[in-house]
Every structure is written in structure tokens, then in C-alpha cells.
């Protein structure tokens, strides 16, 4: 049984328009993968930095997978949300990265994007907040045709992951 431990944290986010942010995250793996321990999705707290140009969450991720094949290597998908002074939440960006496939410590930057809306929606967004969202958030990590989508680049999310692999060499996978 090949096993993958992913231990790490969502360090924080930077380069967003404003930094009162929180993040919903999830790990998605293929059918051959079995989650043995840990939670594979969650949400961070809202970080509200006063002067910083970045939000810090330091949100732990600790997952243990067992797998019988390489397909569907786990990937991390994120949604960064912004909480305004009225306590209302709006989406700031989607992002996704693969969990690194080499063992060891990795610092990852995940870029994010958010969909553009119509002119009217953009106008509303400017004045009263809110954001167009994907009806189907799984699109973030699914490889469907999304060339028709218009998006705006948002900030980056810093992730630090330690990956431990076990028994892959037994099945002829070098790492």
C-alpha cells in the first residue's frame, strides 16, 4: 500500500486588493485514493491585518492518503473570501495546485483568479460588493473547457507542504 502524508499549512495570502481575508480549502483526489486520516477540507479564520500587505492564517493541513495507483494525485483547491467592514463576505478568488509529488518540504504559491461578470454586475460589485461566482465550483480543479470564461487575476496564496511518501518504490515509482 503506497501512502502519502501531506502535512503543512496555508500560510497566508498577499497581493489581494484588501487583506481582510479567509480561505476555504479542499483536497481532491482520484478514485484510487483513500483518505485514511485527517480532514480534507476546511475553512480558515478571517485574518484582518492592520498595516500588513498580506493576510496570515497559518492554517494546518494534515492528511494521510493511501493509494493503489498514481492517477488522480491529490490537488488542493482554494477559495479566497473577503470580509468587509459590515461582516459581509464576498468571493475574491479561486485557485488550485497539485500537491507536490516529490517528498520533502515545499513552499508553494498558488495564484488565484475570479470570474468577470457583466457590466452591470461589475458596477454592482464596485458599489455594493458581491461577486460573480462559479455555479459549479468543481470547475476549479476539473479540466473542463473553460476558455470561454473571463477572469481577473487576484492575489497569491502561500502554502507550505511537507510531503512524505511511503512504499512507492515498492511499486516501481521512483521519487
Amino acid at each position, binding site marked *: 500500500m503506497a501512502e502519502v502524508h501531506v502535512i503543512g499549512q496555508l500560510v497566508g495570502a498577499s497581493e489581494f486588493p484588501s487583506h481582510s481575508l479567509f480561505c476555504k480549502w479542499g483536497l481532491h483526489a482520484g*478514485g484510487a485514493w483513500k483518505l485514511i486520516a485527517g480532514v480534507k477540507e476546511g475553512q480558515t479564520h478571517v485574518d484582518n491585518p492592520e498595516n500588513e500587505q498580506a493576510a496570515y492564517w497559518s492554517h494546518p493541513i494534515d492528511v494521510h492518503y493511501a493509494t*493503489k*495507483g498514481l492517477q488522480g494525485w491529490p490537488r488542493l483547491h482554494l477559495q479566497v473570501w473577503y470580509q*468587509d467592514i*459590515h461582516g459581509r463576505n464576498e468571493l475574491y478568488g479561486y485557485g488550485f495546485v497539485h500537491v507536490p509529488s516529490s517528498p520533502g518540504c515545499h513552499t508553494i504559491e498558488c495564484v488565484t483568479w475570479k470570474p468577470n461578470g457583466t457590466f452591470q454586475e461589475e458596477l454592482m460589485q464596485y458599489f455594493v460588493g458581491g461577486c460573480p461566482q*462559479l*455555479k459549479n465550483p468543481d470547475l476549479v480543479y476539473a479540466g473542463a*473547457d473553460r476558455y*470561454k*470564461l473571463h477572469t481577473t487575476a487576484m492575489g497569491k496564496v502561500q502554502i507550505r507542504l511537507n510531503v512524505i511518501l511511503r512504499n512507492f518504490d515498492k511499486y516501481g515509482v521512483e521519487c
Partner: protein
Amino acid sequence: AEYRGYNHQLEQESTKYFIPSSLPLEVANKVEEHGQPRYLEDEGFYVGEKPVVLQQNKNILESRLLKHGGSDWFGPDGQVDLLPNPVTEAPTKPWVDSVDELDPCIETTYVKARGTAVEDKYFPGSDENELQIDIGTIIFQHHPLMSREHVLVSDITKMYDEYRIIRHKNYITFYTDKLAALRNAAATLKETLDETTMTEDAFSAQRTHINDFTAEIRRTTQQLASAESAERDMMRRIIEVWGDIKSIREKQGYNNTSVKLVVKREEVNYQQDVHHWELEVENQVSERKEEYDVTIAIAHQEEVRKYQVQLQEWKQNRLKLKRIRKKMQRGSQENLLDPNSEVGFPVEEEELNIAGNIDKPQKPDKPAPFDKDAVRNDVMNQLLANRRNPGEAKISLELTHTVNITPISSVPALESSRRRAMQKSTMSRVLFNGREVFLTDPKTLTSDFKLNFGSIFRVRIAQWPESLKVELLSSGLVTRTLISSIFLTIPPTTVHSGNVRLGPTEFLSTRVESFNHEGVGSNTPFTLRPNDASPTSINTKGVIISSVSWSLDQDGRVLAPKGFVERDDPISGGNPLKINDPVIAIGAEGLQDPESLTKWVKESRLDPNDPENAALVPFMQGIKDGEGFPFAQDYFRLEQLQEEFNFLTDEEFSHLNRLRLLQLRDKEVAEFRNISMIPCNEHEITESAFTTYERRLKEKDSLQSIDTKGLEGGALSAHRVEVLRFRQKVKDAVLHRFYTSRHHHTLQDMVHEEQIPDIGTLGSSMAKIVEPRRPLKPIRKTRKKATSQNLNEGSVKILINVVRGYNIPTRQSAHAHQQNRRGAVQISSSSLMAGQTLEPNSKSFLVSPFVAASFQDTVVTTSVAQGPNPSWNEELQLPFSAPNNDYSSSNLQKVDDVLFIHLFDRVTEDATPTDTEDPTTIVTRLQNYWLGSFKLPFSTVLSFESQEDTELLAKCAVFMADCNKRYPTRNVKTTVIDIKGESVLITRFIRALPPPPELIEGLNPGSKEATEKLARFVSLIPFVSDNVTYAGICDLWSTCDQFMQMLCGDEEEHAILLLNFFLHLGKQAYLVLGAAVPEGNTAYVLTLDQTARDYTIWNASTGQQYFKGDPHTPLQSVGALVNDKNIWFNVQRQAMPIRMHFDVTRPADWKPFFGATATPLPSIQPESIYFPPTDQSYVSNLVDVIERTLKDKCKDRIVSWRPRHITRWNRSGNSILRQIAKGLEESITKNDGRASEHNTQILSQLGDVRFTGYPMDQPFTNVESIVSAVRSTEVHKIQDPDVEFSMAVHIHAYPSSVLAVWVYVAAIVNTR
């Protein structure tokens, strides 16, 4: 510096600078070899379009390049080599602007910023969810504005409906026909039955056939009789009520209703009737005779035959034994010398004892002969009572609405004001999650008390549905008053407006209403019939015909939120799969058949890209292909080459032990929870790691498929099995529920905020300075709490402070008396505190008691003290080790080890052998006699969701906060969690319930005996702490019927049951919430006499009672009193019962939860409980099983506990003990001393012996616990070589399989 002219500068520059010229250059300079340029374009080559550059600039560039000497920059045409323009004219990404082309999976929706999007309350994503609510008709079965006539009419209508149903089903004709057919068949069988012509097999087969028929005939006769009596009864009742209606109409002189009962008679032929009648009687008598022959006479013959066989065997045995005895007497001399023969010795001894008359079989009694006349009389009487008598006219009833209602102009004033009140309009308001969403038009009541609303409306919802409430309001002049509120259920997602039907929902309102006109009001007493002795009071109740469903949109899609799973009832089998199984999760649960599932998928147009529908993708593809094998491809997913690239097959994967272990640990399966280390390598994990788990699974399965026979040698009756099954089901459901809810954290769980010191805390810390250093009455300070992370093995200890004991029973000189004293300790209770009920005995010797505490197989003891009032003042330390070395609180609560505290008497016995050679040495032997013991388990509480009104819950919270502020240590509860995991107001658990009639038969209901007997009965229901059953979760309260069904519970269940019984007896009784030693927070029962001066406190789980002024009451503090109407919190300064007033009407002493005018809330207890009689054969069987376990298997029981000694059984002692044991249950319920005197006499038959007896009683749970109780007496540790043991088991059976097990173990030493 010298000035140089500008010209000079230019001169200088011109020599040093090179300025490329913008004039065109000679072509020859640029083209290298031949001096002639080639024009590739003219030669037909494609050169591409060169970017446009100004000629001037080009010239400058060229001249510079030439100067630099780079002729390779030029092409063959003498121009600078330019690449074609890289910029495409048209953009490569086309602009997508038409909405039609938009792929649905990348659609975006604009979501407004909103504050609560993080909470679960709102649906994720879109809010296109719609409920369709149809409020049809409301039919009142009782309404405050009904007149007396209306009440009766509502009664008669209900009965008439039932009557019509009975008539329609026509049971009588059905059974009569069946009976005739059966009799015919039986008769034909009997005719053909001929012993001479038939083979043996065929004959016996036919015989059994006939027997079957006879039994069936008997059954059908009974069914017919009951059907007939039901119909007659119903008709009689209808006619009675009709009589009442007529008399009321006559008396008041007007009609309010149009109901009229028409009785139709049909004359019959008397002669024919009599003929039928006699025929029937004859038939039934002959059938009874036959039945008698089959069941009783044949059974008797069988018994006689058995008896003879047994007698024969017994005689042979006796002969054999006599021979053995003779042989033994001869051989005993050698035996004593030969150490090897010792092993065989006790067996022979035992057999020798059998040679009494004890086992002689009994001759069966001859049954009473068949008395034809008596049976005939019986049959006649039954027929007379149930059936239409000969000559009596056939009657059929019909209820019509033909009477004219007297118009309002000609009725008295009171009635007309009632009718005017009915003109008031009523409307209904619908609230979704507590917010008003719809208000119907006002309607007036029709004369038959119906409200026809007939309004359908749709609610678009954005929140998860929690509650849907319909409120009935009657409009007054200014305000609207609430008549009743009805909760409707949120439908599952399969129910949509296309398939929903209107259905009835019953409702009940306990609002008090009374009028000064003819309306009878609601929940107020009134006399229905003029000659009624006591007034009746009826609550407003009725039925609402309504429907709630999810709407459909234009395409026929159900507008229900995805993943909506309605709250399920754990008792009726919640389906934990629901969340995991996608087919069920999307609401296609009912569609098991794959074909219909395909059809359903086709119709419901699921989104194939939605991951929730992933499991259904194969079905969708099946449709697309349009071929016959849509299901062969259920392995086909997006991951096409999965199989080929897998490291190992699914088969291998599922057999990996490490994976399995890891997964089970993650699921927090009890056996694997909190295992800290799992071996790294597969081969290090043995299969044995799973054996306990697998065994448990097997047990669970077998419990489901268990047969009533065969388990534990018949030690489980059908009822017990049922109980076990129910308990398992409840436990599973509750565990699952709590497991899922455990992960709901509140802010307080995550964030710990220290309270900032304010003026108040500052003041109290100032006050600390002036506090006395060593107060006279020190308050116990809690030890500093250690965080569970830092704990490791060996660092945790259980500390027990053994202070003192009093009234410990003492030894008596007379040997036989020993038993009494010991008996008394055990009987009074199995607690240390119990000795106080004994009178001091002057004749007694001293006693040398010591305390032994045992936990997890470790035993520590105190020193031995002297006398009946010892003072030890010792601290005992017991090491504690948590399972798997995990000291988290959830794991600690799982610890089901019990701390036992035993009290022993140490006796020094002279054991000097009489024939020793050395007279100077004295050998004594220490012996510990068990006096009593008690056990301690552990506890905690959690809070939960509720079905109660939110206002009430808020009130509870306020009340609790107030109470906790005033006296933080006092135990008070307003809501508790019931077995469904919902919090319920505590008063709802209390309701007078009739106890089993056998118990109080012939006793004065108010008498002391009756109460004691009930307390005894309740205490015999096994005690199991909730913490053990529902490990680490919480304290659950079950209602009395659930309690009786589960046959186990903790203090609260016992207390509530006892309280409900007491209330039925008409006592003034309360539930006491308080703290007691040793239970901690617990529930007791308090009964008061009329003046509230004298009181008795009952510990329901032990059956003990404590009177007023008893300083040894285990109850240390009283927190609150509860009865069915109210909760009172103790606001007196003192909480010890002895220093308190129990008059709850005094507001200075007791703070009530409800005001004085509040009406009691309806109870969740049933009106009465059915106590099934206990199966006697089961009980005798059980006695047998226990005795066998202890004795016959004594080789591995008592004998195995004392491996180094001979164990002999004293047979005559056994029979004596059996007699005593039978009397013990009697004596405990009668509570007199006569029985023990009697026992002394019986014991004297034993002769001159030293007798040490241990009578123990306990509720029956299983055989194991009885064995361990016997073991805890340490009777087996007696080392005297001449000791003989005796034992008797007696079970006293109470109804409902509640059993009191008496085990009497004695050690007898012959002193002669």
C-alpha cells in the same frame, strides 16, 4: 581655461565621431560576392511581408552596420534582413459574447455580499428552492365554542365512523364463513380417517392435519366472538350517546346540530334462530372436547410415560451409589494416604450426597376431567353476551343530517351569543423558520366546526428548512389571539407538487378558554351530561388537511435544495448511509430497480457534470447509447486506464491490515479509537488485532438474527432478546448522531478568552484578604486541573479517603446467628452507609473491619480497625491507566471499569490441628468475611438541539443562568436530552403511570407496603450508567416505556418511574435533582405527607428510603424539585435535606420555573405501560442455568478460584438454603424480622456447625455478573480444610421480566 571656438569643436568631433548618413547607400557595398543583388521575390520565392520601417531610418541603420563591417546582416537583395511582421491582424482568442453558447458548467452567478454566507443556515450557491404549501381544511374535533350538544355529536360522529369501518370490513361474515369452511374440511378429514386402510405415515399426517384444523377452528371462534362483541359494544355506545343528545336537545329546547341517528330493525324468524343457536352451541362444545383430548389428555399421558422412565433411572442410580459408598468406606484409608487420589475425592463426595431423596422424580398430577355441562354453560354465556340472541331483531344504524337547526332568532340569549361568537373570523398564518411567510384570508367557522381555507401558495426559500408552523388566529377587535399552532413536516426531496397528496395532521392546544355563554371552552371543566358526577375538560383539538411539497419548475425539475436530508428518527432506523450513498442522497431512494432508476434519471435531467450525480453517470450514458446494456459499464468513469496502472488490485487493497486499522481508527470505532501507534509494516500487524472487533460485529449480526432458543442455554427469553436488540439499535443510532455532531464547535470551544478583571472581581479579591485563614467549615477546594496532554502512564492515580465507618454489623457468638447479621447488611443495601438501620446488639462480639478498594485488578486495603465504629483516616492510592494510554476526556469517559469498595471483617481463627505433636505452637488463620460493597462508575453532560418552543428554551436558559449565579454547585436541570438526542423539558417526563397491577393487588394504595413494594420493583431493574452505554457522549433520559423496554437505565430513569408510580397512588411526590454520595449528581424521589412536614426520600435505583431527620441520607444537597407541572429551584441557604423546608409554595425557599397560572405541558410519557407477565418456565430455566454455571461447572468456577484446596458441597445445606432464599424476597418486601427467626430454626437443622452465609440479591442482567458477585464475597478464600460449601439460587419474577436473583452462598464448617 582657454576658449576654443565652436568651429574648433566641430572639427574635432568630425574626426572622432561617425555619423551614419541617412542617404541611400550603394547596393554593391552591401551585396558581398558578385556585386549584383538578387531579388528573391522576383525569382518566385515567398519572402513574406516585411514590417514597415522609414526609408531614412533604414538608410541610417544600413550605413552604421556597414561601417561596423557586418555584411552578413544583409540579404541577397541588398536590404537589411528583416523578419516578417510577427503581429497577426486578427486576435487568436475569439470573443465569446453570445450567451447561448455558454457551457453550463462554467456559468457564473452573481452573488451578493452577505453576512452569513459562512453559516450552514443558507443554501450554498443558488436559491432557486421553492416550497409549495397547501392549507386545505381544518376540522375541529373539539373547539372552545362548541356547545354540549356539539361535543356529543363530535363523539357520535367519531364512533359512527368506526362503526362504518367495522361494518364495511364485515368481519363477522368473514369469520362465520371461514368457520363453516373449516368445520366442513375437518369433518371430511375425519370421515376419511381410517386406521385400517391407511399406512402409518399417512395416518399420522392426517391426524396432525385434523389437529391443526381444530386449533384453527378454535382460533377463528375466538376471533369471531371478539369481532361480534366489538360490534355490539360499538352499537350500544352509539345508541347511548344518541340518547344523551336527544335528552340534551329536549332539555334546552332547540337544536344546534343536524345529526340524527336512524335505527333500522329487521325482524327475524325465531324458530330458525333457535335452531342455529343450538347448533352453534353443540359445535363449540364438541370442539372444546376435542381440544381437551388433544392438548391436555395426550400431554398427560406423555408425562406419565416420562415419569416412569425417570423413576427407573433414579432407582438404578441409587443402587449404583450404594455400591460406591460401600466401596469407598473400604478404600478411604488408602485414599487419605495417597496424595494423588485427592483430585478425585470431591467428585465422589458430591455423588455421595446425591443419594438423598432430593432428586426423586415427582409423579405428575392427573388433570381434571372434561366437564361437559360447565363448558356448555360457558359457551352459552359467551354467546349470549356477544351474539344477537335468538329472536332479537337485526339492527343497523345510520347517521343522517336531517334535523333542522333551530334558527338564531328562536334560541335563548346564551346560545345566541355563542352563535354570534362563532361568526368571528379565523385565519391561519404560516411561519417558515419562525418568520411569517403567508397569511390566509379570514374565514368563519361553519356550523360543523370546519374552516375551509383552500389556499395554495409558494415560498421561495434561501435557508435550510428547520420548521414550518401553521398558526391559527382568531381576529378580535384589536388584536389577534392564537388558538393553536401546528408544526408541519418538511417533505423529503422526492415529494414534489406533482405527486403530493393532502394529508391530515393532528393538533392539540392546551390553551385555557372559558366563556360565559353556551360554549364549553377548552381545557376548562364543564359537566357534559346533567347527571355526570365529575366535570370533564377537553382540550382544543383537530385535524388540519394540508400538504407541503417542493415545487416543480417549467421543465419539471424539483426545486429542492441539493443534499437536503430530512432529520431522521434514530429509533425508527435512521439511515447513516444516506449521506454516503449518492443515489439516496439525491432522493431517488425508493427506486431500487435499475430500470426504473434509468427512467428516473432520464426524466429528472440530472446535470452530468455535477459531482453529486457522479454515481449516476453510467445510467445517463446508458440512455445516450440507447442500447440494452447500460449497466455493464458502471466501472467506466473518467479514469479510464485506472485498472492497468494500479499498483495492486482492489481485492488486495481491501485486505491490507494496516489500511484497515488506520481506517477503523479514523472512524473512531470503539476498539480502535485513540490507538496511538500503528505498526509501520504490513507484516507486523497480526489478524488478532481485529478479533475483538469482528466478534462484536458478529454478535451484533447474531443479535439481529437470533432465535429465541439456543443462546446461553436458554438463559435469554424472547423479551430479553427483544430488549437487547432495542438497546443495540438505540445505542447505534445515538452514537452515530453524536459522532456527527461532535464536530460542531462553538466559538467558546475554539477561542479561550480570559475574563478581564473588572470592579467586581477586584472587590472579591480584596475581600479575600479579610477572610479567615482557617475557617471552621472549610469549603472543599477543587484540585488544579491537569491538562490531559501532559499525562502519561503512572502519573494518574485515584485517591480514596477512607475516613470512618459506623454501625458496622458485628459477629455473633452463636454460629447460626452469624447468618442473620450478614443477611441484614446485604438486605438493607449493598452500601457502606447501610449499617445504620441495625440496632446495636449488646450480645455481639467485636468486629475487625477493613476496607479494600479494587480497580482495574489492583486491590489496596486499609489497616484493620477494631470495633463497629472504626476510624481509619487513610488515603488509598490506586494506579489508573487509561486504555491505549490516551488521557483525552472522551477516552476517559469510555472507561467502564468500576471502582469497588468492599468492607471485610478480619477474623483470626484458631487453626491449630488437634493432633499436633508440638503443644507450644499455636497456629491461627486469618480469614476475611465480606460484609458489603459498593461500586462507583463516572459522568458528564452535553447540550443538544430541541423540538421545544424557542421561547421556552430561552426561558430555560435564563432560569438556569439565574440559578447557577445564585448557587453554582446545586444540581438543576430544565431540559434534558431524550433518546432521540433532542432536548425536552424535564416536566414532560413526569406523569402518573399505573404500576403493574400484580404488585399493588390487595394493598391499600396509600399504604407503606405498596410504596415499598413499588420501590423494590423499580430497584430491580438493572442499573447501567449512560456513560457506559453511550460512551463519552452524554446523559440521556428515556421515557418509562422505553426504560421498561430496555430494562436498564441510570438514576434518572429509575427515579422517574418510581415517581410516576407514586403519583398514580395519589401521593404528593417530586423528583429531587441533587448531589449524593457516592453517585454525584443524581435524581431521587421525594414524597411528602399532606402538610409537607414529614417527608421520605427514596433512592429509586436501590429501593432504599430515608425518613425525615435521618442524618445519614446519602443525598447531600438538593438542587431542585420537579413534578409534572413545574420545576422549583432551591434558594434556601442550606441544601442538606435535613435542614430544609419542602413546602414549594413558599417563594422565599423555592424559585418556581413557571408562574402560578401556567398550565402543565403535555407529557411525552405514554398513558400507561403494558407490563407483560414474565414467563415462568423461563425463570425456572434460568435458576437452573445459574446454578449449573456456579455449581455443576464448579470445576471451573468456585473450584477454579481455590485451586489448592478441596471443594466439597454440602447437599443438605443446599436444600436448606433454598428454603431460606425463597423466603428472603418475601421478607424484604414485608420488611419484618419474622423471616429471619424462621431462618434460624431452619439453620439449626444443620447441626452443630460454624455457618457463614452470604445472601445476595441483585437485579438480573446476566449470569456473569452473578458469578462475579459471588466471587466478590471471597467465600472461596476460606482456608479451613474442613469447610463445605452450600449454595442456593432463587429468582423472584416480577412482571415485565424484572427478576430479583437471590444467591445464597454459605461456608459450613462442622465443629464436631
